[in-house]
């Protein structure tokens, strides 16, 4: 027992352990458990933060699903954004990492440049893309026009606004490229050589070595990014205000408006819980299906 050897009996050791991790325990209570509980309780009340809260049971949840058309619209928009963004991000990041993992010159420079957009605060990139997407004076339409293509309405169009936000989101895929690249560099060389000796092509390496060994990293990043995408807020808040015609009205924007614009704390918290459960469910589905395509060293 190391503790005993160190001149500490287990009791003192336990005490020190808890002292050292006390910020964690306090933090989990103050900033996670208590807010979650408070949120759940508030979601069962009608409350504007000024008068006394009034218990109404599940009324808020029922209202959201039956009377609030915007709610379903916001869920649809957010899911659309997520379904569009996450797979594209994963594919582009994987492609970028695979390209960087070959013997190219200037690997470090490329890596640096690809990472750069991930540094940019979301509010700055929103402002920047707002200008780039401008249908008349924006650079993107200007370039499209100068090569003879039609101008696109981007964020001014009901159909293009979510794809536009997706493009913006893909712009800062660099951090995932770097994570994937590090994963690729960790793949043992002898495994890849074994494929070559057996006469395999690049496709075989990709399919039977790279993808299986990288799959846990892909899974983790997929879930983290999905959670991020479901929380889409700043871009529509800054760029479109949820428009045009609510077509970029996101879930969190709806929650924010209900809580801080209309003072409907109960409804807003009920929505937050629905978002939370939705996120959990999707993560669960991804986890459950992941055993078919992820591979962990050590188990068969």
């Amino acid at each position, binding site marked *: 027992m*190391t503790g005993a050897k160190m001149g500490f009996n287990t009791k003192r*050791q336990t005490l020190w352990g808890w002292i050292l991790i006390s910020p*964690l325990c306090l933090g989990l209570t103050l900033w996670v458990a208590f807010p*979650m509980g408070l949120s759940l309780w508030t979601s069962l009340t009608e409350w504007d933060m000024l008068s006394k809260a009034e218990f109404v049971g599940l009324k808020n949840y029922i209202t959201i699903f039956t009377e609030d058309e915007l709610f379903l619209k916001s869920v649809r928009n957010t899911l659309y954004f997520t379904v569009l963004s996450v797979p594209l991000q994963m594919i582009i990041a994987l492609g970028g990492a695979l390209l960087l993992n070959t013997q190219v010159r200037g690997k470090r420079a*490329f890596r640096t440049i690809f990472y750069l957009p991930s540094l940019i605060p979301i509010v*700055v990139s929103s402002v920047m893309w707002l200008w780039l997407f401008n249908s008349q004076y924006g650079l993107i339409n200007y370039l499209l026009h100068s090569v003879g293509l039609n101008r696109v309405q981007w964020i001014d169009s009901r159909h293009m606004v979510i794809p536009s936000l997706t493009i913006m989101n893909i712009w800062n895929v660099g951090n995932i490229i*770097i994570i994937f690249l590090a994963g690729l560099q960790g793949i043992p060389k002898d495994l890849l050589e074994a494929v070559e000796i057996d006469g395999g092509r690049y496709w075989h390496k990709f399919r039977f070595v790279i993808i299986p060994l990288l799959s846990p990293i892909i899974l983790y990043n997929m879930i983290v990014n999905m959670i991020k995408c479901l929380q889409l*807020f700043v871009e529509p808040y800054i760029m479109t205000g949820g428009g045009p015609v609510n077509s970029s009205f996101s879930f969190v924007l709806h929650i924010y408006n209900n809580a801080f614009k209309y003072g409907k704390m109960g409804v807003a918290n009920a929505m937050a819980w629905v978002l939370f459960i939705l996120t959990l469910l999707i*993560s669960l589905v991804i986890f459950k299906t992941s055993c078919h395509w992820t591979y962990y060293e050590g188990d068969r």
Partner: protein
Amino acid sequence: MMRTRRTGAVVLTYLCLVSGAICCLIPLLWLVRSSLMSTEDMFKLPLIFFPKKIRFQNYAEVFTMVPFAKFYANTIFVVTFNILGALISNLMIAYGLTRIEFKGRKLMFSLSIGTLMLPAYVQLIPLFIEWNWFGKINTFFPLIVPAFFGNAFFIFMLCQFLRTIPRDFDEAAFMDGANYPLIIVKIIFPLAKPAMAVVAIFQFMFTWNDFMGPLLFLNDREKFTLAIGIRTFISTYYTPWGVLMAAATLTILPLIVLFFSAQKFFISGLTLGGIKG
């Protein structure tokens, strides 16, 4: 035949990488270019690619139109305390979780990691209510205090790092009569400096970029941080685009400088935090 195929693949690789790099850089270059132009020049067709008359005045106007220097000072204030809090709390917690054996530590580690899966925005409204009870809305407290309670991402990363330091160091120190706090300060901290740098840098980035926190907790323009300060330039009636772009450039400048001076820490932080699930 084989040869040409190889060359083709190499050319294609470079083509993809270079066009990717261009896509990454152009928006940023366009931002800087626009920050040096007058609003009239920005709204001229055909587009002017490089401003003929460079207008540095935009950068001066950033500071006169809104209290931008104050935004800067506020952000630096909040960031400094966040880094301080992150360094102290996360090292303590990670030490306790990895190098002292006691009942319940595995559970606490799992609980901490579990919070990574929580959508942060779900807690925001109740946190607002909580800070309202404490009477601390429109102060920096809600933006600073939580940093002193550890962050799951950093705890995970530091735990990984501390496991690579041999336990003999701690034991030797105990022989000399040291206690846990002394060991952390005198032995672990110096050894963990690279990991601590990663914590400091990422905390800098998180806090510098945080939008939702300041949006919820700060009301007075005098207290704004940069992230929400930028928004004050945007208005439905008149948006001074050139000045807005200058403000945006000034906001990202420290991040870019930090990134280029400490690139290796960024990379190691990303790979440590993102690889293992």
